């Protein structure tokens, strides 16, 4: 049997150019080369790529000292954490109710998930129309007020993502063993006791996955941020530089690359590397966690 395996394997290997070739070529063009070139350029001063000159850690120093970058970091962290809490609490509540055998739960599920399919740019313009429609009565706009901009984005994110997380929670809740719930009932546990002592510990894996997902979604958010407020309103710093008050990290990097002039592209690339380390750190923690869980099962 082992020899069949080996002969199949060596026969397959002769076709590696066909099976691996296209993906490897595209993967090098679309990821590997841009990634390593990006790391290299973060240590360089450049306008185009051909004129790159190594400048050591200069770009990183400038990136970390940039007040708008610092602001966007804290703003992103705040947005990510607030949206994480709200999205997960709401999604869990909806999922919990929908798994109670109530009438119409399929229709409700369909409706709650629907916004997830609409793209970020379109979502941003839908909500900017709605918020401005409300705020017009008070003679203001979402573009003029940082607080409205913040909560507007949070509402948009909840609308988009609650349905998504709800799907994961429903799958988790349906996997809670029926006899455990039954046993809790017989022992005289109240609904709330059953929820907190039996149900929630059993769906802990789903909760962790959803928390990671909403955290990374929050950190990577770009389209919705661009379309809803575009970072506005801005304030002018004492040194003459401007800070867009509702600008998140991804948008800050984009603006440094494409609107701040070609002179600071190295700084933009350094910001991108810092951003990558942040997001990858969160993502790898999630993968490690998922792996560990799979091994345990």
């Amino acid at each position, binding site marked *: 049997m082992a020899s*069949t*395996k080996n002969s*199949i394997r060596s*026969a*397959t*290997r*002769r*076709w590696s150019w*066909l*099976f691996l070739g*296209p*993906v490897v070529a*595209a*993967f*090098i*063009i*679309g*990821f*590997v*080369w*841009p*990634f390593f070139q*990006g790391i290299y*350029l973060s240590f360089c001063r450049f306008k185009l*790529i051909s004129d790159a000159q190594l400048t050591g850690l200069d770009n990183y120093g400038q990136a970390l000292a940039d007040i708008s970058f610092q602001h966007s970091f804290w703003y992103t962290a705040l947005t990510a954490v607030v949206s994480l809490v709200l999205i997960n609490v709401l999604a869990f509540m*909806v999922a919990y*109710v*929908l798994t*109670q055998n*109530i*009438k119409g739960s399929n229709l*409700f599920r*369909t409706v709650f998930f*629907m916004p997830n*399919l609409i*793209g970020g*740019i*379109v979502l941003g*313009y*839908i909500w900017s*129309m*709605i918020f401005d*429609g*409300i705020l017009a009565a008070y003679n203001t706009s979402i573009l003029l007020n940082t607080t409205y901009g913040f909560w507007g984005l949070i509402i948009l994110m909840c609308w988009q993502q609650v349905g998504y997380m709800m*799907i*994961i929670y429903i799958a988790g809740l349906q996997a809670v063993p029926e006899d455990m719930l039954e046993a809790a009932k017989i022992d005289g546990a109240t609904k709330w006791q059953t929820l907190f002592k039996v149900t929630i510990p059993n769906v802990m894996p789903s909760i962790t996955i959803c928390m990671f997902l909403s955290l990374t979604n929050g950190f*990577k958010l770009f389209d919705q941020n*661009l379309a809803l407020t575009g970072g506005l309103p801005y304030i002018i710093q004492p040194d003459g530089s401007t800070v867009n008050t509702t600008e998140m990290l*991804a948008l800050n*990097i984009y603006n440094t*690359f494409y609107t701040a002039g070609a002179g600071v592209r190295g700084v*933009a*690339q350094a910001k*991108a*590397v810092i951003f*990558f380390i942040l*997001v*990858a750190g969160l*993502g790898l923690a999630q*993968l490690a966690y998922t792996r560990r869980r799979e091994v345990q099962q």
Partner: protein
Amino acid sequence: MMNKEQTLAAEQRRKTILSAVLAVICVIYVLPVVAVVINSFKQNTFVKTETFALPTEQSYAGFDNFITGMTFGNYPFASSVLYSTVITILSTALILIFCSMAAWYIARVSSKFCKIIYYLCVFSMVVPFQMVMFTLSKTADALKLNTPWTIPIVYLGFGAGLAIFMFVGFVKSIPLEIEEAAAIDGCGPVRTFFSVVLPMLKPTLISVGILEIMWVWNDYLLPVLVLDINQYRTIPIHIQYLKGSYGTVDLGATMALILLSIIPVIAFYLAAQKHIIKGVAAGAVKG
């Protein structure tokens, strides 16, 4: 006995109340979409002042918004629909074919090179697009991948990670004996893959396909940086540039275009809801 009936009745009442509450929330939930529909039939000046009112005789614009929308922003909307469709279909097809092939090879041969590719793929899933956007757009330009017919190669490269990860996971769960039987019957690797393995991959092909369709159709940043936007605009780019190009925007026409762009998405969702929800959940738990 009486007591049990009472609790049952109470339980029933509780469920009815919950249903009613959820129904109300659902109505609120679809209001933003309803607002788009209403406002797409209103004249521009009324969109901001009477956003939540139904069109009146005064504000009703008929299909004017849709007609202006067709050429709005000095760019034909039909072209952006065409480019979005071409890019989405080609990219998804490329990803499904080539990534399933590569994943099968990686799972079955598992040489050192395969393992390197596999871990690079897993790694690429956690890299945010901003990290590579500048260098990727320059590379794509240099290789002439900046048209709707060639940008799918960029999507194949940047999207390979998740697709290969999901396919490898599934291939590993297929028993090897089936392929061995095919080999003993005289099937070469290429035929084994296409006539034995690929049909078994169908559920994963659907899941991955749906994830890729949703990603590519809605993607804004990659095409805006790679394509020549004077010539080629996808729907999200078109909608973003309506606002970017003028000081004042015809909100009525914008809403008409937004409505036209979400109708196919919602139709697709209603038609393939079960698969979409399953695919999205699979992508979430794995990625």
